[in-house]
């Protein structure tokens, strides 16, 4: 559905080029020229290299929650679909500050050795919903992501299809065979693996604030807590936090506004943890921590509704669950 602001924005576009344009005669000629020239890279004899930035697409599915929504028509009325159930929380008889302090103390008592070079295993799921006039299907098939990177910033990331956890795929369309290799990206050249957070995480609240802002220069004191939560999730995507680092992250959360204690939950892979949440008008981000170690176990994002032109029913949009380090 297009609103007035969107119509105005599109009408104000002064560009002559459009994404949907067919190729011009000049563009066709350029393509012919390019293909007639010899590429410098002799890939027949060289090991296959992946672009560092090519990793971003894999990372979008692997290290963060990506959401792909296929909606056949934005004018289609919002469909009622089976949604991934929200986490069922049991209230905890303590305040947010008390729980954060307890987990921070537990974490800080754990080992603090940090080395460059990491192995990260996680299960990630993204919402893939098809809505049309005839039918709506919904199922959750997570991806199992194995990331290894070394101190010279080489490594690889490999993704396999997981078991369908929720829903009922009525056909094999869009469903991968569990265990099937979905992607493999190599970063063979030293320096080619590009972690967003390339240095080891700090172990204090202020250190985390500076660490996140260094990677996101546009963040300031007015930045939504939601975005800081997202950054914590992204950091965990690259680093299995040591005890002191996990304590620093928890201490940082204690300084943020708009954070609530949801309660004790069982995350998507069956582990018990403490759920901490923050929300905007449209989304809620949940971080689940191991109460005894302070480690971030998993995260998930819920869409609460309310975004104009986003004709998707409220519900869980995706999650990431990290295996314990080691």
């Amino acid at each position, binding site marked *: 559905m297009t609103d007035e*602001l969107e119509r*105005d*924005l*599109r*009408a*104000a*576009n*002064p*560009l*002559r*080029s*459009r*994404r*949907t*344009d*067919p*190729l011009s005669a*000049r*563009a066709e000629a*350029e*393509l012919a020229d*390019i*293909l007639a*020239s010899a*590429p*410098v*890279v002799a*890939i027949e004899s060289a090991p*296959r*290299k*992946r*672009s560092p*930035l*090519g990793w*971003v*697409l*894999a*990372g*979008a599915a692997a290290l*963060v*929650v*990506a*959401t*792909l929504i296929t909606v056949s028509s934005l004018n289609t009325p919002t469909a009622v679909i089976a949604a991934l159930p929200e986490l069922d929380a049991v209230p905890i008889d303590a305040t947010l500050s008390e729980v954060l302090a307890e987990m921070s103390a537990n974490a800080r008592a754990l080992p603090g050795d940090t080395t460059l070079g990491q192995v990260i295993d996680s299960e990630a799921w993204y919402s893939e919903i098809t809505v049309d006039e005839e039918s709506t299907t919904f199922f959750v098939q997570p991806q199992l992501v194995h990331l290894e990177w070394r101190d010279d910033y080489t490594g690889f990331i490999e993704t396999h299809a997981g078991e369908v956890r929720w829903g009922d795929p009525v056909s094999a369309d869009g469903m991968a065979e569990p265990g099937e290799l979905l*992607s*493999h990206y190599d970063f063979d050249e030293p320096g080619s693996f590009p972690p*967003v957070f390339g240095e080891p995480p700090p172990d204090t609240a202020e250190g985390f604030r500076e660490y996140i802002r260094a990677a996101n220069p*546009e963040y300031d004191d007015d930045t939504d807590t*939601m*975005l800081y939560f*997202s950054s914590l*999730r*992204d950091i965990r995507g690259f680093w299995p936090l040591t005890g002191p680092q996990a304590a620093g992250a928890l201490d940082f959360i204690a300084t943020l506004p708009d954070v609530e204690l949801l309660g004790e939950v069982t995350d998507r892979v069956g582990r018990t943890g403490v759920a901490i949440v923050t929300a*905007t008008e*449209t*989304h809620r*981000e949940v971080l689940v921590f191991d109460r005894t170690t302070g480690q971030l176990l998993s995260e998930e*994002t819920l869409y609460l509704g309310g*975004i104009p032109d*986003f004709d998707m029913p409220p519900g869980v949009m995706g999650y990431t669950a990290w295996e314990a380090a080691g």
Partner: protein
Amino acid sequence: MSDGSTRAPRRSHDERAAAFAVVYREWYPLILTTCERRLGDRAAAEDAAAEVFRIAWQKFPDGAGATLPWLYGVVRNVVGSEYRRTGRAAALVRRAEGEGLVAAQPDDPRGFEVRLALAKLRPIERELLFMTYWEELTPAEVAAILNLPVTSVWMRLTRAREALKKHLDRTATAGTISGAEVEA
């Protein structure tokens, strides 16, 4: 979208060329659009887009690694080189990418108002609106290019729209007050 996600067998030149042509046809119009937005000139944009794909051909002859985020990164480099070549200062770069577009199509008053309001936004907000509504990128594509979770893109887009609306409302209010003063 070609994501190069599977291990490809070795290919002949013709097979690679065919694969590269698919990537070229998929992304060329978008790359041309983003080049035009940044350079403000169609002919210069065509030169820049051609250069982007020449680089892609040298780097990824089978097109497999020429993902949208990678191509977008090359656009930035190529456009930056063009700025340096033509001696534009950094401040003028920003003008060309944002404020410079305000002057376009002066015979369209509403469009002028919208572009003027866009120019008053923070660069990150403006960029997000340009990517979404002028370059017609999907949120998932924007997220991949900016390396953000797609939910963050939605949130930022919502805020950018709100900021733009405020500027437009302010412009409309100012126009009303100004008109009343003239009538008085």
